[in-house]
């Protein structure tokens, strides 16, 4: 067997020798966010949900762009449960109000409750979670038990109790609902933040920063938190949708937004009486609610895929 003991050498020109460990310098620099954005903008799921959310935001900010009819004006009982007609594409409610206008004007309440609740939850949850995860010890134990107490409260029961407190019974507003939702939902955010922080806090780059002379709090703010943000952002996007549903649920039960504020939850509740005769009265606000929630959840999914560290190039 000559082939077995022969000394094979590949021709030099076939595999030219490259400089050891040369830097690939042709592409533009990629930060985590730039990389995530590049992945996102190729995803149809993201494009669709982003367009929907943009449209919803515009509607929420300027409802009069789409509907010239004020939601509570010109309700005439003569039009009760009336079908679509010129200027009133969705028809009329039991009270004879324009459904289209009510659906358009309901966007504002839903989105503002969602966005404000998420901001509150982020402030409380991220602060508590980061402190608990980074410092550990008794602080972690106290904050974890505190979170567990709120975790154990069911949303609707908790909301019933809180809204019946003397302080809130008389002056209900968007803020009451935001407070109820934030109070019951921050532990989830705190847990996710805590987990992400615990994962990052022992990384070598954190130790290196401490060896440079950065204070412990300094490393938390400058190195640990920015690296723990990805799951927090994903959860925040998903929770936006969840909070909008929660607001609608509370309003449906009559313990959410006050009567004067337009809300899809109210309209769905009011449409119950006519569900057998004219189900489309309920259909429109319900569809608006579903589309809004769905678009936030789709956005959350897309963002999660884009920020997934496993898919990052090394």
């Amino acid at each position, binding site marked *: 067997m*000559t082939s077995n003991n022969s*000394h094979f050498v*590949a021709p*030099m020109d*076939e*595999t030219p020798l490259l400089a050891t*460990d040369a*830097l690939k310098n042709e592409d533009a*620099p990629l930060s985590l966010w730039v990389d995530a954005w590049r992945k996102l903008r190729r995803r149809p799921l993201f494009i669709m949900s982003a367009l929907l959310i943009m449209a919803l935001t515009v509607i929420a900010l300027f409802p009069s762009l789409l509907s010239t009819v004020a939601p509570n004006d010109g309700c005439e009982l003569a039009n009760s449960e009336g079908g679509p007609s010129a200027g009133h594409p969705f028809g009329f409610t039991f009270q004879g109000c324009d459904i289209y206008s009510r659906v358009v004007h309901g966007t504002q309440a839903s989105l503002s409750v969602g966005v404000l609740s998420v901001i509150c939850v982020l402030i409380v949850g991220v602060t508590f979670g980061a402190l608990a995860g980074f410092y550990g010890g008794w602080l972690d134990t106290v904050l974890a038990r505190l979170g567990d107490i709120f975790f154990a409260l069911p949303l609707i029961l908790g909301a019933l109790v809180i809204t019946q407190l003397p302080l809130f019974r008389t002056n209900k507003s968007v803020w009451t609902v935001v407070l109820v939702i934030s109070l019951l939902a921050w532990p989830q955010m705190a847990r996710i933040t805590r987990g992400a922080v615990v994962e990052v806090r022992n990384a070598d780059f954190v130790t290196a920063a401490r060896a*440079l002379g950065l204070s412990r709090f300094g490393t938390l703010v400058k190195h640990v938190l920015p690296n723990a943000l990805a799951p927090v952002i994903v959860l925040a996007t998903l929770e936006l949708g969840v909070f909008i549903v929660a607001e609608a649920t509370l309003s449906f039960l009559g313990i959410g937004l006050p009567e004067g504020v337009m809300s899809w939850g109210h309209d769905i509740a009011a449409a119950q009486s006519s569900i057998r005769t004219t189900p489309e009265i309920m259909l429109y606000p319900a569809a608006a609610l579903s589309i809004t929630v769905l678009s936030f959840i789709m956005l959350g999914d897309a963002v999660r895929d884009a920020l997934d560290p496993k898919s990052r190039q090394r």
Partner: protein
Amino acid sequence: MRDKKMTISDVQVDEADYSGIRPLLEIRDLAITFKTSGGDVQAVRNAHLTIMPGETVAIVGESGSGKSTTALAAIGLLPNNGAVSHGQILLDGEDIAHATEKRMIELRGNTIGMVPQDPMSNLNPVWKIGYQVKETLRANGRPSGPDDVAQVLSEAGLPDAHRRAKQYPHEFSGGMRQRALIAIGLSCQPRLLIADEPTSALDVTVQRQILDHLDTMTTDLGTAVLLITHDLGLAAERADKVVVMYRGQVVEAGPSLALLQNPQHPYTKRLVESAPSLASRRIQVAREQGLEASDLLAPVAEAAASDQVLQIQDLRKVYKLRQGLGKTTAFAAVDGVSFDVKRGTTTAIVGESGSGKSTVAKMVLQLEKPTEGKILFDGVDTSLLKSSELFKFRRRVQPIFQDPYGSLDPMYNIYRTIEEPLRVHKIGDKASREKKVRELLDQVALPQSSMQRYPNELSGGQRQRVAIARALALDPEVIICDEAVSALDVLVQAQVLNLLADLQANLGLTYLFITHDLAVVRQIADHVCVMEKGKLVETGSTNNVFESPQQEYTKALLNAIPGAKLMLPPEVA
């Protein structure tokens, strides 16, 4: 032209067929293509490989060279997006490059066995070891009673096999897990065993035991072995033939000793030159100006104190391990360690995992408090430093960590990473800091254009150079390298070691070098401290320790360096 060669070798194979010595595995002109979102990527091209029955062949190459992919193709376990796009894989004359899944299942275990790379993740944690062996035996239609299982395990060198078979993977150490995996791989007495970096996650002495045992077993059974490794010394010591792969191609193949002594391809030459296990002396710095440079160094406090920059005296670190409610047991990670570090030299602390060497480094860095003992830096007891003095101390002692993927903040670009120490210590203004960063990048031989890049765009070696630049930013006197080159490919490792040696000569740096790799120690250290289970067992100059080790443990460590006993002509080594 290649076509012509192919036909010749075809004829040869046919002839060999008649004479009865047919190669067990022959890979001809193999190409493997992966489908990725960025288009097709050819991971392996023109790969040739022949393994005769009972022979050991090693594939050597750096990460990404295609060595594992080639081996996985031979056992039909390529990832779903990969496929053999050209060439043949002949197992005993049968082309299995495109064999059906059914046929491959028949072959796996019985004819081709596999020992995977990472013993920590390749055993299923929810099943007992015995069950996992039994599963293999049963799948290949062999007797699988408790006694058979125990026999297979004890053949792989696990003592008390009946009891061990009833344990779960987490009750096994790394070496024992690897033995269990070898037992599984060899349980059905395959004719070919593919061992993919079987010992790279283990300590050197364990590595040696395992490889010795694997040798004996495969010789007894007459099994051919395809050994995949990044370590040229290990390959040469264990294999009859060595195949060197580079960028997806086989660049050189031949009998191992001949190939080492007389490398032909420039890549192989480079590999042989930089393999730490084959080198025999300290890196000689290109610019021999160490003395002048250290004279220029920042004013040294006192002539008397100047010599020993670090003095470590009776250092002890005891951890309390929690054992149930309220009960703790003391565990001495570091136990009575004393040594001195001379200014401008390199002192290496060597030990296996769990020897306490990293804990010493953390205490010197003031990231952990010693339980007992003193660390004197320039004659000053560091435990008495006030926080403002500690802040100044941090400027003078800087670390470089092991994991190049973990030691840089992924959210910071290279500029911010290297600038951070300057900002923390409020040195200079924006313009002067940028100038300093550019200088540092030059010092570690990275292009200045890489400043805006992020760590994920750099290779391991490049990241490690960024980490070195960050450590140098404050003009420290002492740098503590905690396994700073262990995770790097051989050539990159040599490059980083050379860089460290150059910097030492130019800046008069003192290194405390923590490592498990004695081969690296010989290349870079002046003094060695050998640690075992928290205790210092031997100290001395590198030459003394390597030439006449006094302690049994040190001898065992030295013997375990793969390729240490290979006799190479001096001009190669």
